[in-house]
């Protein structure tokens, strides 16, 4: 059996207001990532409870796998565009996986 190639890359996690889905989606691609996964989430932060009980009171969570350069480009782009007026959490993790060239 051929040994699988394991590579390292970054996973950017971004939690923000539901209203931003389309805008942020475009920024992610513009920053050089090739794709992302979005899910609906709930939670609480300094902007109060985000209970997803009403349109716009929910949050979404993006997971973006990409190379290191794209990851930091993305963080900078998102922070500068949205962190002033929108609820936003963003951080970067190191991850390992196969098919690293895919990201």
């Amino acid at each position: 059996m051929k040994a699988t190639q394991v590579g390292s890359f970054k996973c950017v996690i971004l939690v923000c207001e539901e209203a931003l889905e389309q805008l942020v989606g475009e920024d992610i691609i513009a920053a050089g990532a090739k794709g992302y996964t979005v899910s609906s989430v709930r939670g609480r932060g300094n902007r109060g409870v985000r209970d997803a009980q009403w349109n716009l009171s929910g949050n979404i969570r993006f997971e973006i796998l990409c190379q290191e350069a794209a990851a930091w480009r993305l963080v900078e782009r998102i922070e500068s565009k949205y962190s002033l007026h929108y609820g936003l959490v963003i951080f970067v993790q190191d991850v390992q996986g196969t098919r690293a060239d895919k990201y």
Partner: protein
Amino acid sequence: MTMSIDPVIGFFVLGLLAGVFGSDLKLSAGLSDTLIIYLLIAIGLKGGFELSLIPVGPLIVPIVAVVLLSAGTPFLGYQVLRRMGKLPHPDAAAISAHYGSVSVVTFAVGASFLSRQGIPYEGYMSVFLVFLEFPAIIIGVLLAKGINRNTEWKRLAREVLAGKAIILLVGALAIGWIWGKDGGAPLLPFFDGMFKGFLSLFLLGMGLMTAARLPDLRKVGPFLIAFGIFVPVISAAGGVMVGWMLDLSIGGTTLLAILYGSASYIAAPAAMRIAIPEANPALSIGAALGVTFPFNVLVGVPLYFEMTRMFYRMML
């Protein structure tokens, strides 16, 4: 003794109480979405069926008049918020946009109220609903930014014009108009016969939602609470006069007053969050959903009806 209040209002109060007492009752987001889609289609279809019975040409002037005069609400609201409320510029603009736009569910409650009272109204009122939905949102952005190159008008236009409210209202209106009442007859048991049942379910959810917004009222403050009651009443009075000028029936004018007096909490918040990010959404949604919606549903609808009746008697 028969209860004079529409039973659908009972479900709103039930939801409100359930929320206040911390019940685990909850309408899933999927159900709320389904119900709003149902209500939008039902209202659009009803308007389309009525439209198929009359010539459309004579409606153009009333529509233009209703839309132009509806701009009064956001301009009045903006001045009141800036001068009397001393609110920051972006907040005043965003809140005015919410109050200038209309609430589909308040309209539905009004239609339900009229049918219960046996008061007829022009079926094409939902055409006005469509045209009152978005101009105020554009006025709100103009108030906030002026003609600014940085405003992404294309994105905003898509957000508003391709939003589900406009797509479904216009689409169902067109379907009702093309097929007519006879062609569309198979749809009536579902979209007309079951209307009050679905409206009750939606109002139950709205009651819960309103209860969840009540803590926001503390942030909103006494000024915005007063604003959320008085500005709708003044706008509704304007609506009564516009309806009278256009020679609408008492029922039609009542619905126009309800439209002028209602505040949007579906189309406007989504558009404002993107168009005016500096504005605090807790203020506008707190006022529109926490104050004006319950006020209109419980007090405003019968009040605007009485205002219309009195005005028409005076003008005889």
